[in-house]
């Protein structure tokens, strides 16, 4: 049972890494990045190429940096230039980017499933409550907790975090106060996509790589973001843990309904409270 709960936390942690990126971007740009799953997937493939050549940790670093760069480009070229348009136009463009990125990966790496190696340092198992548990899964939990803690501290205790919280509440008023929201957004969107790259690499050894690997997890992280309340960091954290547990326990105890449970939960919550658990700022 303890092992099952831990497995749920592993998936929840991955979902959190993706969902919090969506929340960060939504906070500043009021846009949901449909290409987030594709960036997750691209990050995973970039990391895989280096990991297959024996440079696992370098792959992690390169993937995170590359996705941060992609995010900055995305912010400048798409989000900034379209900020006066209807947000749904921007969403459509990120959907177009999703199709383009999937094709790029299919053409470059092929459609075949690839398996991502586990780094030597994290290979093996430990015994938890009498059962073996892969060290690598513990690593995923640690990474997501570190990101969650770091992000919370950054938002809570730094000046920039204060600006981000302000801009997420009301970007217009924040810019009137003399804060360059566009520059802030560059950092925040870059951070959000970098986290997509990070989760792509970290998830790699757990999942199999395929050009459509981002789609499932993207939909799950949408569910997390909606349940947590669009734009809420703490909401995303708890919703991710909840969906992680439901995903995992459901697969064991209610296999016929497992894939439906998150959807039903989302629909139920939206009917009960259209703004999600934590309430929405928009």
């Amino acid at each position, binding site marked *: 049972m303890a092992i099952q709960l831990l497995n749920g936390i592993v998936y929840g942690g991955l979902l959190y890494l993706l969902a919090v990126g969506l929340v960060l971007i939504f906070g500043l740009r009021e846009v949901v990045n449909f290409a987030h799953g594709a960036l997750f997937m691209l990050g995973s493939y970039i990391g895989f190429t280096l990991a297959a050549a024996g440079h696992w940790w370098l792959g992690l670093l390169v993937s995170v940096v590359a996705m941060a760069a992609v995010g900055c480009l995305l912010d400048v070229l798409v989000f900034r230039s379209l900020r006066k*348009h209807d947000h749904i136009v921007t969403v459509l463009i990120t959907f177009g980017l999703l199709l383009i990125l999937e094709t790029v990966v299919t053409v470059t790496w092929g459609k075949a499933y690839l398996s991502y190696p586990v780094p030597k340092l994290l290979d093996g198992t430990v015994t938890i409550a009498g059962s073996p548990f892969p060290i690598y899964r513990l690593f995923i939990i640690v990474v997501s907790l570190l990101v969650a803690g770091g992000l919370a501290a950054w938002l809570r205790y730094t000046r920039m975090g204060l600006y981000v919280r302000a801009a997420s509440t009301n970007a217009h008023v924040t810019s009137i106060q003399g804060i360059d929201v566009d520059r802030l957004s560059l950092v925040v969107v870059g951070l959000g996509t970098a986290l997509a790259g990070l989760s792509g690499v970290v998830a790699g050894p757990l999942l199999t790589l395929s050009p459509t690997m981002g789609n499932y997890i993207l939909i799950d992280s949408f569910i997390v973001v909606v349940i947590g309340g669009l734009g809420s960091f703490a909401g995303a954290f708890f919703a991710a843990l909840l969906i992680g547990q439901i995903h995992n326990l459901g697969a064991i105890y209610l296999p016929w309904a497992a894939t439906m449970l998150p959807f039903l939960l989302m629909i139920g919550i939206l009917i009960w409270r259209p703004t999600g658990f934590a309430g929405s700022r928009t």
Partner: protein
Amino acid sequence: MTALSQGDVPAASSPLLKTRGLLAMALAALLLGVAAPRLVSSQLMLSLATQAIFDALLATSVGFLVLQNGRVSFGQAAFFGLGGYAFGVLVARGLMAAELAVLTALALPTLVAFLLGLVFARIAGVAHAMLTLAVGQAFYEIAFRWRELAKGDDGMAFNLPPRIFGFDSSLLQDPSVMVVVAWTILVLALLGLALFANSRMGQIAAAVRDNAERARFIGHDTTIPPAIVYAISALLAAIAGLLQATYNGYIAPQMFHWSLSGSALIMAVVGGAQFILGPAIGAVCFFILKDFAGRFAEYWPAIVGSVLVIVTLVMPQGIVGLLKAGWFRMRRQA
């Protein structure tokens, strides 16, 4: 919902004259459709055209939601699949007469969409896009996992009963017949939508789209009209799904998949979702483009994505919007 759904308000010129013009156009289009199989001899061409018309119906259903409710759906394939599956499963199991199965396949998605619409209409913008995507995928998951229903992932072939509504049903799998049937349905559907948009219910739905609070203030009910729009739009998608399932004699979970919803949405936006004709024209353009891009089939999704990005950036009103603007400019100069 400014950029996508805000069309020009139709001029209040004599409604009777307008309806007459619409009817004349529809009649001309119907005659053209009946003549098409006699003009085009290639069965392949007719078969491709049939598929393009199914796409056009689905794109029209997505576009209608944008036009009337100002809501962008990423899950319209749910109703397409539901229509196809309801018919396929009922017919394959011989649970009811084919005629009754057709009615069920149309009524079920319409009813489901009406009920969902009561909830969805309250949720706007980006959250709506995410919600519809998730609900659509939920349907896909059911069709994918529930092997006893229709063989899950493999999809299920089924045989049509010999006669439907008194006609030989094998005709429905002949492209030169199906193309006329589908075209006729598409033309009638577009005519019906145009009439609906000008009707009282359509005008109320448009008012709710533009400002729900004000519509409520002046005494209109603001939940039922948008839900009716959802139902109509789902009915169109279900018709498309039903036609495709009948034509192919085959159903598969891909009929529910979000990539289908997404491509229908892209066709609608590229064609011009703020016009009733736009989505269908978008679907036809994509059909022609796909024919040209045949050699680059591997890159097709990227081509679609690039077209979407370029169109939304350069001509947010879509192809029809561009044509309309060009037409007005020409008239002004003349």
